[in-house]
């Protein structure tokens, strides 16, 4: 096919494009992923028994804020990587939620006798927590990959890693509905580990899934 014919066919196919195309697709992709993730949470483990009571506590909401701000920061970076130009990526955004939550964790450690650090850190089901978040992140990750099908990422590993971290962070928001432990030390350790795992998996899959 010659280039002239190609141009003609592309012109015929032209439809107006929304200014908010990237944001719209990300919202749809993450939204569908979150719906699947919540369904998974209810099917596998259900909400925590005291959910209604803890909605009134500060510890629950600081943990929720930690996960929400992580989700927001990583989603912002993901949206940035959807465009092809290699401009500055604000990776340090990811450190903000951790650094903001860290003083609370240190405060907990200071207030607690060292002998009780173990139970606080290992909480209730720490073994599952990281893997459950990782599992809940899978549908969200694929929602993001779907969104990326019309994007133009040029740094595939990085975009994959950020999509992974983002899906982990959003999954952690969902997981707050279940997780019975509100200690900052607990969330800082095991949630963050889940984000790192999801980011690593995303980087690995990015090359394959995000190529265009």
């Amino acid at each position, binding site marked *: 096919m010659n280039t002239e014919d*190609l141009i003609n*066919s592309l012109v015929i196919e032209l439809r107006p494009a929304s*200014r908010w195309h990237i944001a719209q697709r990300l919202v749809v992709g993450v939204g569908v992923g979150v719906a699947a993730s919540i369904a998974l949470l209810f099917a596998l483990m259900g909400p925590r028994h005291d959910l209604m009571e803890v909605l009134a506590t500060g510890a629950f909401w600081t943990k929720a804020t930690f996960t929400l701000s992580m989700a927001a920061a990583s989603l912002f970076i993901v949206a940035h990587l959807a465009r092809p130009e290699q401009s500055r990526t604000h990776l340090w955004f990811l450190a903000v939620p951790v650094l903001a939550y860290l003083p609370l964790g240190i405060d907990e450690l200071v207030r607690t006798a060292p002998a009780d650090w173990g139970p606080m850190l290992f909480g209730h089901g720490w073994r599952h927590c990281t893997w459950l978040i990782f599992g809940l992140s899978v549908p969200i990750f694929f929602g993001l990959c779907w969104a990326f099908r019309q994007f133009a990422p040029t740094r595939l590993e990085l975009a994959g890693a950020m999509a992974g971290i983002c899906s982990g962070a959003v999954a952690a928001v969902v997981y707050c509905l279940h997780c019975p432990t509100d200690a900052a030390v607990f969330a800082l350790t095991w949630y963050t580990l889940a984000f790192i795992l999801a980011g690593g998996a995303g980087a690995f899959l990015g090359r394959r899934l995000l190529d265009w």
Partner: protein
Amino acid sequence: MATREEELKDKMISALDGDASAYALLLNALVKELRIFFGRRVGDKDAVEDLVQETLIAVHTRRATFDRTRPFTAWLFAIARYKMVDHFRRSRFHALDGELEDSLAADDFEPASAAAIDVERLLDLLPPKQRQAIQATRLEGQSLAEAALSVGISQSDAKMSVYRGLRRLSARVQGKIR
């Protein structure tokens, strides 16, 4: 006087709002820019034209990722560079890519029945859309428009299907030889 950047960006923004004539002007202008860009960086002339077309398709399908507040040429050449890196990455397949394409397009293809059987067997390995697109354009000699119509897809989709299918076949053939 408007700079090249401003000129192209204006046309792009009109195109994003659905102005087909601005879009046609834009794409034709891009062909010139891209031929120069790839011509300087890629030796093979056919490869240059392939890359120009691939980049046009990418510009078309990814056009919504252009941010109207940022420079257009930076966006365009980021896409072109990505396509070029992709090209170099698979350039070791290129010799075969050309051969396969030639053998499929050759007029005296029919007598080589053994080859035809091989080609059919190879085509069976492809997804139906790619197989049909290649069969229609390369074996039955239909135009791209006819092929697109008969397969029931858009022309650019047909073009991409042919391209991807051929690329896959050559990778496959290469794998068998090795």
